């Protein structure tokens, strides 16, 4: 099989080394880049990111990469956003005032609930390993990046905001935090978002990256 060629978008945010290594470990040829031509010609595109929404969108737009990501999505190339990269796929965020996102999946980014369902103060940020839950009505992760994942498999989260799609069908998996359901994986056609860090989620995370390369 030809090795998948993945562009990891570099827009000045966070740790790109681990995403690169994770994908390489799964057999991809990876280019970390902000060059639109390289991004547009890749067979898979990954939008990483840690940090604040507004800062992320600003850095992306400064480099003209917002338009490039939209083009990638329109071409039908599999596009995966991780963490902040996932949140930016939505229409807008409430982090530090309202900021427009890329609008590739209908929905909004809102703060994690400040209390648990039993009314206790919730630890924010949500940091740590947590199990993935399939939303009601979904029997398995077939045809998604979760195809190889078993019930009870845990992945690593670190976030203070959550990306909530408008359409329930766009929720591929949730995570329960303080009793509240929080979207963990979202997807709409070729556009996928992962709230957790597959590149930091051990062997389970590598299985998810591997599946992304083979979608």
């Amino acid at each position, binding site marked *: 099989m030809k090795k998948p060629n993945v562009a990891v978008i570099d827009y000045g945010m966070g740790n790109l080394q681990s995403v690169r290594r994770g994908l390489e470990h799964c057999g991809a040829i990876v280019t970390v880049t902000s060059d639109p031509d390289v991004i547009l010609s890749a067979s898979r595109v990954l939008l990483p990111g*840690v940090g604040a929404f507004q800062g992320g969108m600003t850095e992306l737009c400064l480099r003209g990469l917002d338009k490039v990501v939209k083009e990638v999505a329109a071409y039908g190339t599999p596009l995966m956003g991780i963490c902040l990269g996932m949140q930016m796929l939505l229409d807008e965020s409430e982090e530090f005032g309202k900021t427009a996102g890329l609008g590739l999946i209908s929905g909004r980014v809102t703060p994690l609930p400040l209390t648990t369902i039993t009314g206790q103060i919730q*630890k924010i*940020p949500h940091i740590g390993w947590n199990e993935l839950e399939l939303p009601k009505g979904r029997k398995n992760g077939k045809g998604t990046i979760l195809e190889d994942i078993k019930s009870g*498999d*845990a992945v690593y989260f670190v976030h203070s905001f959550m990306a909530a799609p408008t359409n329930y069908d766009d929720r591929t998996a949730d995570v329960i935090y303080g009793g509240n359901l929080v979207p963990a994986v979202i997807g709409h056609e070729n556009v996928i978002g992962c709230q957790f860090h597959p590149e*930091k989620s051990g062997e389970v995370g590598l299985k998810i990256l591997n599946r992304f390369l083979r979608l």
Partner: protein
Amino acid sequence: MANIRIISRLDIKGSNLIKGIHLEGLRVIGLPNEYALRYYLQGVDELIYMDCVASLYGRNQLGAIISAATQDIFVPLTVGGGIRSVDDAMQALRAGADKIAVNTAAISNPQLITDIARRFGSQCMVLSVEAKQVGLNQWEVFTDNGRERTGLDVIAWVKRGVAMGAGEVLLTSIDREGTRKGFDLSLVSAITSEVSVPVIASGGMGKPNDLIDVVEQSGADAVAMADILHYSRATVGDIRQVAKLAGIGVRAFEET
């Protein structure tokens, strides 16, 4: 309650993994990434790399070690020691760190906490606090790996650091560090009851049961440990098993 995290803390001097007592009298253990990989394969939830002499020399030498670690370790890495600016933080992140722990530089320039949090997000900014007991339920903040006093009260300083943007607290008891006598439960309780960000308890893990005490009695969200793993007195798997039997949530992990 969320799963607690089992974290291996790797204290580094130059290119070596070292271990001290009360953060002093450092002994060389071996090569950091050999140990890191072993713990990763045992299912450790995170790794903390702490450059013990960085503040003293004004530079951090962890870049190459972190970069090498990311080749085959796929869990979060926190890097601390000698981070004095947003640029230093950026260098560490570029090398493959996920979180930055700041102690000494945050004391002399608290604004650094806010600057790092704004640039990379609060989740990236770990406030590292070295605490020494100075009275009943009173602890003083130390810097430079337990060498310098600051006159600051630990509880007040942690609250300030969190208000300025720290997203997590790495709380090290100098009194217990390296002693295997268990965690300073009063210290950890004093902090977890005051802040809503996750708290990592560090210093004193002598046996797997110590983890149960600091989680159940003091509300620690994560537990950092060093010599219990370095000297193979227990594996990460042993510790996870003890936690699980006590009803403490830990991540599911299958050893291969």
